[in-house]
């Protein structure tokens, strides 16, 4: 994919971290804080534009938050970032692996193998990076993996074991999951979508559009019939994380002003997926990260759900309207 020549443009005082990813993350942290205004200059916020492209390359989203770049060497300004979507490349290994670190909770599994698998599938799969970024930090990843095609891979076998183990505690869904992972695996796609916490939500409709478009293009463009068929997904399985209220039974809200939702979704599209899902269930996570203050009554749980492929157009519509309503991610989640 043709890349523009790199401009060496970097404010003098980036936070000193020795991981390229952490530096990118630190940059990102300021992008999603629109409250920061050091000196306000007249800068109109450009509407996000996306240039449509041909079948195989990606489109760019320009994100220009209001504010100014500080000129006195202090890093308190807002950063401009052009996000671009790319096909997965072997170079992205470390970024992708970092995003997938907690995918299976604390299970020890072939995470590197899973990352390699995702990177090898260049026809379907998107990696979000900042344009002209020297460090090539990976900010988000979305892909769909056919569970039958990769059934022999160690990582997929361990993943299936993990899902079935969590489902065994849940009545009813265990058998359905076993079917999907076993006999029906030919048409089942594992939808993997991971990102940095503060990725601007405006990117999401484009990210999912590009993913599902690629899936449908792959059913026509892949060289062999087997491969073409492997992208005719009928079901998608999604493994994600949510915050569930500790007292799920609690109905009375005493002195709190704002209603406490039963479930807080870390990723906004999960709420839509959850509504459209054929079935779903939660399981407790062994890693309990310290929750931000707003979420002190919540516990983080894993969520496994399955969505039928014919519900995807509805999903895309609902996601677009959800994001364009100017919904903003609450701070700290």
């Amino acid at each position: 994919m043709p890349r523009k020549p790199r401009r060496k443009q970097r404010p003098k005082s980036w936070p000193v971290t020795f991981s390229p990813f952490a530096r990118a993350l630190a940059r990102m942290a300021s992008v999603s804080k629109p409250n920061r205004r050091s000196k306000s200059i007249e800068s109109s916020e450009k509407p996000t534009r996306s240039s449509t492209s041909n079948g195989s390359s990606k489109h760019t989203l320009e994100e220009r938050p209001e504010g100014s770049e500080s000129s006195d060497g202090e890093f308190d300004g807002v950063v401009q970032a052009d996000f671009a979507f790319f096909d997965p490349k072997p170079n992205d290994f470390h970024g992708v692996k970092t995003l997938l670190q907690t995918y299976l909770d604390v299970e020890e599994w072939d995470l590197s193998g899973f990352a390699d698998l995702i990177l090898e599938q260049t026809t379907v799969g998107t990696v979000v990076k900042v344009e002209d970024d020297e460090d090539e930090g990976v900010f988000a990843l979305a892909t769909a993996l056919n569970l039958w095609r990769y059934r022999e891979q160690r990582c997929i076998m361990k993943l299936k074991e993990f899902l079935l183990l969590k489902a065994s505690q849940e009545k009813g869904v265990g058998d359905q999951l076993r079917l999907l992972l076993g006999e029906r695996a030919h048409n089942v796609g594992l939808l993997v979508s991971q990102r940095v916490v503060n990725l601007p939500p405006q990117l999401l409709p484009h990210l999912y559009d590009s993913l599902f478009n690629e899936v449908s293009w792959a059913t026509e463009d892949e060289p062999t019939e087997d491969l073409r068929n492997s992208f005719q997904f009928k079901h998608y399985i999604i493994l994600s994380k949510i915050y569930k209220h500790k007292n799920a039974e609690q109905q009375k809200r005493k002195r709190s002003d704002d209603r406490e939702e039963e479930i807080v979704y870390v990723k906004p599209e999960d709420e839509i997926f959850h509504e459209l899902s054929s079935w779903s269930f939660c399981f407790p996570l062994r890693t309990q990260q310290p929750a931000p203050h707003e979420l002190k009554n919540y516990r983080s749980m894993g969520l496994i759900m399955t969505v039928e492929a014919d519900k995807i157009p509805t999903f895309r519509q609902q996601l677009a309207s959800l994001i364009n309503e100017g919904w903003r991610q609450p701070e700290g989640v």
Partner: protein
Amino acid sequence: MATRLQFENNCDIGVFSKLTNGYCMVAIGGSESFYSVFESELGGVIPVVKTSIAGTRIVGRLCAGNKNGLLLPHTTTDQELQHLRNSLPDQVVVQRIEEKLSALGNCIACNDHVALTHTDLDRETEEIIVDVLGVEVFRQTIAGNILVGSFCALSNRGGLVHPHTSIEDLDELSTLLQVPLVAGTVNRGSEVIAAGMIVNDRTSFCGSDTTATELSVIESVFKLRDSQPSVIVDEMRKSLIDSYV
């Protein structure tokens, strides 16, 4: 001999462990399999101590030590300090130091004879390093990075440094340290050498993403291969040939 392992799917094992010729420290909270790899390789030869530092698991990056001593940051709790003093051999001097750069493992790279330190380290800290660790101290950078402790792994027999270290720098550092140095990577191209591997004179541990090429470079520069081909032949020759006629 170099062993590959991971800590909870994380290949940065140098963050969660510290290895010297006299002892080994391992973070608590990892799975037992992590700890048992160390036990099986090192058990009986040197003590393997489970600990936290400042309540965290990043023990490898917060402390600096060799067979003579161990330096701990000021954030170490009293219980941790006591635990380490009890568990480590008596000849190891365990000292908590007041240094504002508290990630001592990132700022100091040392073996039993010489240490490289961060250029902004306090004078007092430098003197304590000389006393406690019994080493000669050099303030250096590696490939332009001041966090020398992060970008090199050092033993008494060799060293591995940041891949972008120039030849001149390699020569200069090699002269200071008096060991052979090689510029390379660990964990499939990661430049943060000390995060990806730990090493002493007899053995080494690397993250499981380390490729076979990287592993062979490590075994070669740190002289960890038990038997070099020439050594085998020489030993055999001694037993096979009694005398030359």
